[in-house]
């Protein structure tokens, strides 16, 4: 369902907050959640969480005393920590949207050793395991309660 875009300042703040929650990592070779492609996915995936996301961003703006995106990195981390400490359903919804989009990005999935594909139609292999583990249980007497 098409939605109104976020106001420009809220979009900038959301991107900055996403990058604060999950920054890029050279060590793991992964982008941050503020990466252009991932953030585009986030903006397009607000869906039924849009109102909560806007509420969380309004709370963020209050804590930041204005635009969160314009703060220096150290100050951003302080404000983000206070936001996380305050918690609440709107913030949980915002973080969920960030994670939903970050952990389906091809680059991120490959860095985790995951195939970037849907489960169907290829499926997965699960080993049968050692069924002889059941031998001691098979040897147990009946354990259901008789009612006669």
């Amino acid at each position, binding site marked *: 369902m098409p939605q109104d875009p976020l106001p420009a300042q809220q979009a900038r703040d959301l991107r900055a907050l996403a990058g604060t929650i999950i*920054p890029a990592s050279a060590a793991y070779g992964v982008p941050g959640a503020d990466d252009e492609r991932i953030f585009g996915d986030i903006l397009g995936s607000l869906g*039924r969480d849009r109102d909560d996301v806007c509420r969380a961003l309004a709370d963020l703006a209050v804590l930041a005393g204005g635009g969160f995106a314009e703060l220096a990195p150290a100050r951003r981390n302080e404000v*983000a920590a206070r936001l996380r400490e305050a918690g609440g359903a709107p913030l949980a919804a915002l973080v*969920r949207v960030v994670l939903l989009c970050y952990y389906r990005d091809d680059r991120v999935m490959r860095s*985790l050793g995951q195939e970037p594909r*849907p489960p169907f139609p290829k499926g997965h292999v699960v080993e*049968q395991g*050692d069924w002889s583990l*059941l031998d001691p249980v098979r040897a147990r007497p009946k354990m259901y309660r008789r*009612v006669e």
Partner: protein
Amino acid sequence: MHDKVDVLIVGSGASGAAVAWSLADTRMRILCLEQGDWVKPTDYPSNGRDWEARLFSDFAINPNRRARPTDYPINDANSPIKVANFNGVGGSTIMYTAHFPRLHPSDFRVRTLDGVADDWPIDYATLEPFFAENDRMMGVSGLAGDPAYPPKQPPMPPIPLGKSGARFGRAMNELGWHWWPSDTTIATADYEGRGRCINLGHCTPGCAQGAKASTDITYWPLAIRAGVELRTLCRVREITTDSQGMASGVIYYDADGQEHFQPAEVVILACNGVGTPRLMLNSVSARFPNGIANSSGLVGKNLMFHPYALTYGYVDEPLDGNHGPPLCLWSQQFYETDPDRDFVRGYTFQFGRGVGAIMEAIVSINAGRLPWGEDHHAAYRKLINRRIGLSAICEDLPEEHNRVTLDPVLKDSSGIPAPKIDYTISANSLKMMNHGIARASEILAAAGAGNIAVESPILNGGWHLLGTARMGTDPGRSVVNEWGRCHDVKNLFIVDGSIWVTSGGVNPTSTIQALALYIADSIKQRLANLFD
């Protein structure tokens, strides 16, 4: 005005499908009204890259979050457990996890054995042939020989143990506790036109492979071929009665919001433990001012959920993650009453594999395990695919204050009052849940897991909706008799989880369907004098 049908079934889920199929051989004219629509396998989330994300949108388990046009809202603010369901052909079998234990023989005799609640008016032996018939119809995978049950023979072999199942098995052996591969309706071999499981791992929100049995692909094709009519996108508002106090049919709205009256000789309710009392309480007349068939005052009361206590932890090597059916084993070690415990009755443990990448991130960040900032990546890599967990499915005893009523304000899109849930977890259940958490922690420790976490109760764990139109022989203490017929209205039947007297401590779908087949058989045997 529609032509009168012989049998009108409301709801096409687990029980509605089973009763429709069983009655079809009578050659009566049978119609089923379903408020949802058919769901195509290509619509299931596991077809797309957004497969996990859709658990939070159109395949959310909570109908208030899912909010499809075919859903109705539920006021669950006064309940620590939120209702989970699905509305469509197949009902909640579309969105169940296919774990398929039966009730135990002792579950039907809790008053006699333990002095609590009430005995059922039927027993395990009565249902046994219908359990077996349902196992064949749904296609059950499992392993014969479980010492926790009377003998049974699942038609297909069990789902694989995998790394997590084997780890749990070794732990349970070390502790000397019972465990067994679960009975499940996930086909492990090609079965009756269904493809075998290919371990998509995302079983709950519908199986794109068709390996998971939902009644849209098991009972319904056969019932329709036998002549049953299934009319979708029809939302029933009320059951009507005639001057004799017999059910005369139902009033429903079609997809365009047009009101219809559908007359019927017999009405069968199959809307489960919330939808059925909602419909009955909304069926008010001069003869039935408190809702149809409610002279006992028990319609909507005694709601039982099965509180779930989830305990999980993390090991130091990658396991199965979300690959494979999520539930693979059960334990009945703590199922029966033990006088040395501080609670009566008991629970099943169901053992789970891991979760997907996104779910792990969301749950762990909410729990505070997964930090924001630079440390996020290293912490996440110690979590993904390393989770193992188990849930205690606790027997919930009936209490009249746990109930479904009609919300005075909230309505669905057709203007029908929404159900309102008032529910508290009993002291007995809380003790049982805590016992389960303590034993689960021991099991996880034996399995080499650390970083133990608990979710108790599982918030969105109201999958099992039972007891709100209970079965019994005393019309003052029950809503339906021992074969599902309402005491007050002799052509009105209920075949879903509403009629359960007690809940047991197992996933209920197998027993719900066996009951539906048993009631259908009872109807067929009494056709000549059904209303006597």
